[in-house]
């Protein structure tokens, strides 16, 4: 966990709604894929939490969808702008659970932390299968980046305009040793219910502080109350209590 100022190196659109921002600065606070950063933006009171997609010694990358005031504000920022960022927040994915053939499943911008995870697994000589789900062909992104690290992702689109038609769960019917997922809660729940083996999911909840102080994002799990920002955002699939 660290707070530092970062400079925007690039900030551009990947699709109509999805943006990619790379920021340079002290990344030593980032320890695991699946952790997040919390970015302070001018004139907005609360920081904006975003999963880290990728990082090295000098910079990190986030992928975000323009959905509200914070992300619209981020999208308008030019390169060179300096931002106050807290890094290395939360618990990331546990790579030791992967087994020989893990499956990574991302929905939309939920693919962001899975890219970093895929890179880390490849570095350990584990080659994961990857399923990426989108609503339509125009919204498909980051397939080339996965291919560049030697993984050809399976693509699903809800309207069938690219890859397999349907949700990511349509493409899961093959053996794997463990799964890692990030996406909407409906998607995560469907994956957990369908999967024959356990996995880890990253949950997104509206947060206050991002480091465990305000209790704003607590969910009840089979292992008691957990703060998504501090005890998550990655939870074991078996401990999640889905709300009806």
């Amino acid at each position, binding site marked *: *966990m660290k*707070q530092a100022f970062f400079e925007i190196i690039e900030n551009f659109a990947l699709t109509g709604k999805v943006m990619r921002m790379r920021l340079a600065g002290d990344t030593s606070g980032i320890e695991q894929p699946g952790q997040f950063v919390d970015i*302070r933006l001018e004139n*907005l*009171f*609360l*920081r904006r939490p975003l999963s880290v997609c990728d990082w090295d010694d000098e910079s990190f990358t986030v992928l975000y969808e323009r959905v509200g005031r914070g992300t619209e504000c981020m999208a308008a920022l030019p390169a060179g702008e300096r931002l*106050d960022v*807290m890094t290395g927040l939360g618990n990331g994915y546990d790579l030791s659970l992967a087994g020989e053939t893990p499956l990574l499943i991302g929905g939309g911008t939920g693919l962001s932390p899975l890219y970093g995870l895929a890179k880390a697994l490849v570095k350990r000589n584990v080659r994961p299968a990857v399923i990426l789900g989108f609503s339509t062909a125009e919204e498909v992104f980051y397939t080339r980046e996965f291919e560049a690290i030697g993984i050809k992702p399976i693509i699903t689109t809800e309207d069938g305009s690219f890859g397999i038609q349907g949700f990511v769960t349509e493409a899961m019917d093959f053996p794997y040793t463990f799964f890692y997922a990030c996406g909407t809660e409906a998607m995560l729940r469907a994956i957990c219910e369908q999967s024959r083996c356990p996995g880890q999911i990253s949950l997104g*909840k*509206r*947060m*206050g*502080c991002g*480091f*465990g*102080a*305000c*209790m*704003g*994002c*607590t*969910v*009840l799990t089979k292992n008691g*109350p957990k703060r998504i920002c*501090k005890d998550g955002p990655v939870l074991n699939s078996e401990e999640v209590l889905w709300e009806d």
Partner: protein
Amino acid sequence: MGRLSVSLCGIELENPVIPASGTFGYGYEFADFYDINCLGTFSFKGTTLAERIGNPLPRIAETEAGMLNAVGLQNPGVEKVIAEELPKLARCFHKPVIANVSGFSVAEYTEVCRRLGEQEQVGWLEVNISCPNVHGGGMSFGTDPHAAATVTRAVKAVTKKPVIMKLTPNVTEIVSIARACEEAGADAVSLINTIKGMRIDLKTRQPVLANITGGLSGPAIFPVALGMVWQVSQAVKIPVIGIGGVASAEDVIEMMLAGAAAVEIGAANLVNPFACRNIIENLPAVMDRLQINTLRDITGGAHG
């Protein structure tokens, strides 16, 4: 005595900066960022008799210059607080701490205060009769002078530690509540807790918070808090702790000039974990600029 030091119910504080309950956990999350022993003290997360999970999510919403929360007093209950949280707190904070207490009945307030009052590291009890986010407890004791006095009297009877009554701004007239607490034996009052409010999501046309309403905090409420501290501090003889939207050394001084003996800082901690340390570090230079020699002499300085 340093030039920042103040006295709170007979206990010397190195400075008047106190992180407010519910924004500072039990201290150890912040000890990962800096040595929290630079603080005057802090008020730890509100404790109830039994464990509470709190309200359904979402329980945080952003506002202009502030935020709404409807956490609903999530805490592990007094037994676990004493057995697990206070030992962890003691490892990172070595000064007397403020135990914040909530309840749904006079008996609950009394029992939690009795047990926390027995803990050596607890210097003061801050009794929250002002939580806007729970039903049938909390604020209902803080909106009626008789109920406020009843809780104060009951709590005072079970502890020798100074009792601070934390007041709500969600009343027609806060002075009468503060006076009732003073007459019932309160050693201090702290104000204000959050202001009840809400937001609606324009896309879903539904309230953002699952609890519908929440408590507003942050710089947006500073002038409201200042006005109430000004009023109450002129109406009671016991010390007033000023709370509400304080975010800078200048705000601390303004709050003290309005009548505060010490200042609690809440929402600022959530957006910048270093907020309180920065304020403490900035105070001497701001005092120099304003020709203030010792902070403890400025309380109520604007009263005339």
